[in-house]
């Protein structure tokens, strides 16, 4: 039915965000992510307490006006710990995806463009890596490297790039045969120019769409690893690590696990909503 609306098509292109894209879910996603970003950037201004200071007199207090999320077994304010944790978890989500996005896209681009041994190698490596469950691969790498935040990042990077490489590779493979790339080649443009000016802009959007949902996965994996004691180490206030500390007290101090998980889930929903809307926008614009 699209071809029946030539006039409205033109007006749509003018705006970065057309009116139809601003849906309630999109707004909710933006609001959640903006709040999370504010918490990540200004934790000191928002958190009422120091997240690591132990207060024996205020141990395992239920949520109250003074401690809206309650306190933990050391008397630390859970809300403050959650606020300070935002920075860490968002970073894991963001940088855990950004590095694989860049490296994986480049590898996929080169493998598909030049083919040959590079492409075979990529496909063999991905075949081997696909044989392991994602979580197990991350755990195995952390086992080798040792626990800790940096090693968690390295593990996420080592495992994450492959999806992007495969995604970009598949896109470039189809694009390679298209006429406008042929035309660019016939015109004698250099490989670098064709790749950067013509191929990359066309294949990167699917990578970015995937990255949006991958961020949530990455954040959850980071939190899971910290929950297992393999990632961010206490007393650093990471959401999964806070949850892990609270797990022992779950029967009588459930707030210690409830709130960090809730914030993690809400942040994840916000990112997903945003990612979903982005997918929608890119898909409709791409048509």
């Amino acid at each position, binding site marked *: 039915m699209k071809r*029946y609306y*030539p006039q409205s098509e033109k007006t749509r292109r003018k705006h970065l965000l057309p009116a139809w894209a601003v849906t309630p879910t999109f707004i909710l996603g933006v609001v959640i992510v903006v709040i999370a970003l504010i918490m990540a950037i200004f934790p000191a201004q928002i958190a009422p307490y120091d997240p690591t200071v132990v207060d024996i007199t205020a141990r395992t207090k239920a949520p109250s006006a003074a401690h809206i999320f309650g306190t933990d077994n050391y008397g630390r304010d859970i809300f403050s710990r959650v606020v300070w944790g935002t920075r860490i978890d968002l970073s894991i989500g963001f940088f855990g995806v950004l590095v694989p996005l860049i490296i994986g896209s480049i590898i996929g681009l080169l493998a598909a463009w030049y083919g040959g041994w590079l492409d075979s190698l990529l496909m063999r490596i991905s075949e081997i890596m696909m044989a392991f469950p994602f979580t197990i691969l991350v755990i195995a790498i952390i086992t080798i490297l040792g626990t800790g935040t940096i090693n968690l990042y390295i593990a996420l990077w080592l495992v994450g790039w492959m999806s992007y490489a495969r995604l970009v590779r598949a896109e470039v493979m189809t694009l390679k045969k298209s006429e406008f790339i042929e035309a660019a080649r016939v015109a004698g443009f250099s490989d670098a120019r064709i790749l950067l000016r013509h191929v990359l802009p066309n294949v990167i959007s699917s990578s970015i769409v995937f990255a949006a949902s991958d961020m949530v996965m990455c954040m959850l994996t980071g939190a899971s690893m910290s929950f297992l004691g393999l990632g961010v180490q206490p007393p650093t206030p990471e959401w999964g690590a806070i949850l892990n500390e609270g797990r022992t007290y779950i029967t009588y101090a459930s707030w210690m696990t409830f709130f960090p998980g809730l914030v993690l889930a809400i942040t994840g929903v916000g990112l997903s909503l945003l990612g979903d809307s982005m997918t929608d926008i890119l898909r409709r614009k791409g048509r």
Partner: protein
Amino acid sequence: MIGVAERILEVKDLKTYFPGRDELVKAVDGVSFEVYKGETFGLVGESGCGKSQTCRSILGLLKKPGRVVDGQIILDGQDITHLKEKELRKLRGKKMSVIFQEPMTSLSPVLKIKKQLMEVFDDTPMTRAEKQQRAVELLRMVGIPSPELRMEEYTFQFSGGMRQRAMIAMALGARPKLLIADEPTTALDVTIQDQIMKLINSLKQELDMSIILVTHDLGVIAQMCDRVAVMYSGLIMEMCDVVTLFASPRHPYTYALMSSLPDPANKGARLNAIQGSPPNLAHLPEGCPFWPRCTECADICKRERPEMREIAPGHSVRCHCLDKTAAYRGIIEAPQGKEA
């Protein structure tokens, strides 16, 4: 030729609209015609003129958000315009069935041909073996060699022509009285096209059914049809028997279609393409939808939509300028009467 034949299908002032986000697409905007028992009725027009949507309206298979908003469809004496899906499905296959343009996409890729044939008899009290026997007979009827073996295969193992034959077998399995053939040969090679058309014609005789043949190919119309309706942007522009259509078309659009055909008597002559492009169905011009492309356009054409007028028994035309178009008589003899 028509005489007092019984009607198998009657379509009265059918309107099928597609409400869009901002606009209303009037795919079919007041179409009326009859199909008599034993005849082949042709619906011809450019793509997007609403001929397929007319067929889908009859079958009750409109794609969303399409809806029949007005009019009446009477099949074999029964008003089926507002039948519920449950009632309608009892008529499909048995009273009317369809073959689509693309046999590849119209057959399920993951089921054996046998299974897709046998499901025609879902409601018939027959044993599996009997259904299987019927499936073999049907495939033999449409000329598929060694049907017992071929029916164990999948669509992707069939050639284009074979797929179309299989689809015809499925459509005719329950002996419908009306077959709607929606561009049945457009996707096929020319040689195969001819075979399929001959097959449809012989099956029509054999099974004593009526056919609505939708096509944009006037050659096919000439070969197959008894009567023809020419459609343009959701309206029938001219309707008559096939001989009259070719001998003395009266609507400028029909005439333009005719003169865009290659003329065997004048090899090497340039083809006369119709100028302009079909209108946007959401923004139809006022008056006659064809006026922006019409060579005979008068002032009244831009203001008022012409009504269908019967100018001779069995020949109706929707045009204000019938006096001028009387000159079209005999275009077959003098095809280059107009310069593009």
